């Protein structure tokens, strides 16, 4: 289905094609159209128009048929997506059901997907921390993966470019491994979060808690108002889509912005089957698309292709793009595409109580979710028996509860008069994992999906480094909690499969050497320079920061490069 019919080009020819409309594809589309390129965005899912297509956004809990629970039949039929924290009755329509889009798990892998305009940018957790050179230099320093072909200075201006438009609430914390950015006012730490920060400062020199930096308009600027977005109203039901545009999504921001230029065409319900290669030049000349409803195949042409289908789907598109020049799949001459797939280790949490600060609570809701503990392990040099380290979420809250004893008027009286509980504190780990050749996604040789596309086979697992890091997180956080005087400390080791972190990265990694990497320093496929991959697939390593901000910055940077290269006639 075409959106913006008036911009459809004759003979299916465009200047640029973007595959995918999620957080990175939306950015590619915005930048390309702003620079005057007639751009076609191909989205495999349905259209989701800002506000209009957020059916649950203004519903009270009692207006949901199942009080926000997912029916058992749905859970039973879709075990993977049912494990996702945000898959609840209010946002279930934005998540892919296992049953409808099967894939093969060589090892357990919870692949969380959102097939619609905006992709997962609609339901993301909105955490936006920059990477530093301690991340970009990580593989070279510690001897894993390959060296990143870029450093912080290469991406810093693009972080700024993206942050100003997106709107990031945060403090300038002056932390070496978490560079400061272009910030709107932060959501402050609450009484106990601040207390914990002070305790860490007193007990450790190098550990702290900061206000989590997040993509919320705490104080909208003219550029945000111009997008039609307003101040975040602290609803914290973001996964439904926000009628205020209080948080950033492709739907509220980049896509309508791109549409306003008059240069955007969008094709929804359209699956990118493969990138078409011109056999004479070896360059990409377009994209072959399957209509999701009619299954009819159509070709669209462009001078440059941006692949932003989401990490694993971008791998699949590359591998499925077989031609005389690329018999093994696009960019896959060295059999690297799909390999070195990595993720974030979210498999441990810890909770406790705090007896103090009884005179204080919070009022309203914090869209940032609370605090963020930057990585403090192996930051400047190797100190532990595992490589790299972890960041952690940290939050404190006081919640009301009701006594449930008895029956009749006694019970009703209790229910009608909730009591304020003490402070609860909690943390979850976000561990860097080491990309390995043995962690991969590839196309299955025989199984196909409903559109005749090869099913994707995924084999990703934790390793010994992850286990050691997880144990260290639990030990360190327990100690930090004990020193702060927290009580009833509970360690929670989940056995969650990789993927449920929703931070899968790699498979078409950036690098300096075409023999050991798929993409160059500007996200171009080494061997096919007019194809850029600027989603999670490009990631050489994972750091411990949430990756979306980096995808957006890399996408904007790559578009700038592509447009210059087009002007010079280089691609």
């Amino acid at each position: 289905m075409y959106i913006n019919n008036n911009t459809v080009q004759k003979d299916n020819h465009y200047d640029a094609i973007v595959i995918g409309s999620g957080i990175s594809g939306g950015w590619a589309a915005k930048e390309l159209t702003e620079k005057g390129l007639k751009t076609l965005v191909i989205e495999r899912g349905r259209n989701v128009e800002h506000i209009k297509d957020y059916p649950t956004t203004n519903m009270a809990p009692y207006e949901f048929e199942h009080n926000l629970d997912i029916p058992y039949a749905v859970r039973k039929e879709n075990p993977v997506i049912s494990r996702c924290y945000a898959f609840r009755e209010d946002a279930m329509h934005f998540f892919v059901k296992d049953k409808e889009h099967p894939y093969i798990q060589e090892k357990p892998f919870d692949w969380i997907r959102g097939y619609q305009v905006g992709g997962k940018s609609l339901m993301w957790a909105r955490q936006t921390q920059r990477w530093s050179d301690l991340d970009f230099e990580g593989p070279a320093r510690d001897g894993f993966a390959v060296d990143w072909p870029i450093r912080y200075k290469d991406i810093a201006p693009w972080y700024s470019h993206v942050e100003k438009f997106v709107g990031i609430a945060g403090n300038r914390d002056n932390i070496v491994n978490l560079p400061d950015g272009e910030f709107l006012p932060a959501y402050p730490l609450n009484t106990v979060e601040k207390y914990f920060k002070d305790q860490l400062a007193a007990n450790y020199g190098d550990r702290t808690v900061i206000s989590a930096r997040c993509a919320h308009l705490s104080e909208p600027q003219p550029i945000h108002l111009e997008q039609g977005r307003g101040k975040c109203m602290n609803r914290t039901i973001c996964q439904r889509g926000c009628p205020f545009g209080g948080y950033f999504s492709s739907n509220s921001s980049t896509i309508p912005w791109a549409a306003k230029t008059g240069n955007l065409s969008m094709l929804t319900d359209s699956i990118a089957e493969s990138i078409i290669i011109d056999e004479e030049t070896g360059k990409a000349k377009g994209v072959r698309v399957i209509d999701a409803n009619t299954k009819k195949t159509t070709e669209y042409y462009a001078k440059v292709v941006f692949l932003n289908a989401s990490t694993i789907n971008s791998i699949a598109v590359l591998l499925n793009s077989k031609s005389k020049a690329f018999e093994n799949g696009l960019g896959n001459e060295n059999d690297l595409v799909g390999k070195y797939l990595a993720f974030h280790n979210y498999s441990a949490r810890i909770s406790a109580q705090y007896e103090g600060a009884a005179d204080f609570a919070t009022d309203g809701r914090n869209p940032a979710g609370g605090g963020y503990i930057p990585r403090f392990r192996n930051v400047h040099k190797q100190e532990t028996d595992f490589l790299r380290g972890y960041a952690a979420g940290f939050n404190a809250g006081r919640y009301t509860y009701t006594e449930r004893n008895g029956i009749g008027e006694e019970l009703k009286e209790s229910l009608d008069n909730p009591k304020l509980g003490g402070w609860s504190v909690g943390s979850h780990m976000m561990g860097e994992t080491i990309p390995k050749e043995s962690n991969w996604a590839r196309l299955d040789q025989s199984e196909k999906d409903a559109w005749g596309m090869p099913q994707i086979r995924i084999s990703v697992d934790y390793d010994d480094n992850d286990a050691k890091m997880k144990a260290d997180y639990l030990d360190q956080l327990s100690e930090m909690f004990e020193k702060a005087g927290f009580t009833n400390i509970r360690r929670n080791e989940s056995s969650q499969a990789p993927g449920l972190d929703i931070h899968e990265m790699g498979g078409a990694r950036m690098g300096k050497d075409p023999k050991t990497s798929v993409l160059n320093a500007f996200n171009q496929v080494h061997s096919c320079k007019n194809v850029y991959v600027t989603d999670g697939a490009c990631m050489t390593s994972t750091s411990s920061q949430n990756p979306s901000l980096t995808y957006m910055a890399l996408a904007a940077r790559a578009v700038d490069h592509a447009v210059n290269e087009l002007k010079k006639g280089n691609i």
Partner: protein
Amino acid sequence: MNSPINRKAFLRNSIILAGGLAFLPYLSSCSDPTEEASAELAELAETLIPKTHTPGAKDLGLQHFVIKMVEDCGDENQQKVFGQGMVKFKSTFRDQYEVDFLNAKATDRSSFLKQIEDEKFPELSEFYSLVKNLSIRGYTNSKFYMTEVVPYELVPGRYNPFFKIA
């Protein structure tokens, strides 16, 4: 899936699956066992959360919420606990008070639930907890409760991280 007809079918199935044919002899005036079970559940919930100067379980239709949640969201085990529990609850009450729960005095209903709370009938405790928890959930998530007892704020528009308690 949501029509009253299907709701009835669910209730009938869970009772029959639970060996609930034994339910039938107890039915006096009412020829439809599912209606009777639903009415009984309504009285059970009302005994837990009675009408006072504010609405009670029956006013709020909490029995529909309980059935809906078990029917749609409960797993096989929960559905079994529910179906068997309905039957067992009825027969145990009748054994004790020689009258159906539905026709019993409010004081007898209350005293029976208190005995279950005191673990006098361990075979009913799982069923009872399920119904009590869902009744409480239904009540505290009802429109009445969320607008008049503890109003739910859809749009707070604020965050005060240092809220001083008076």
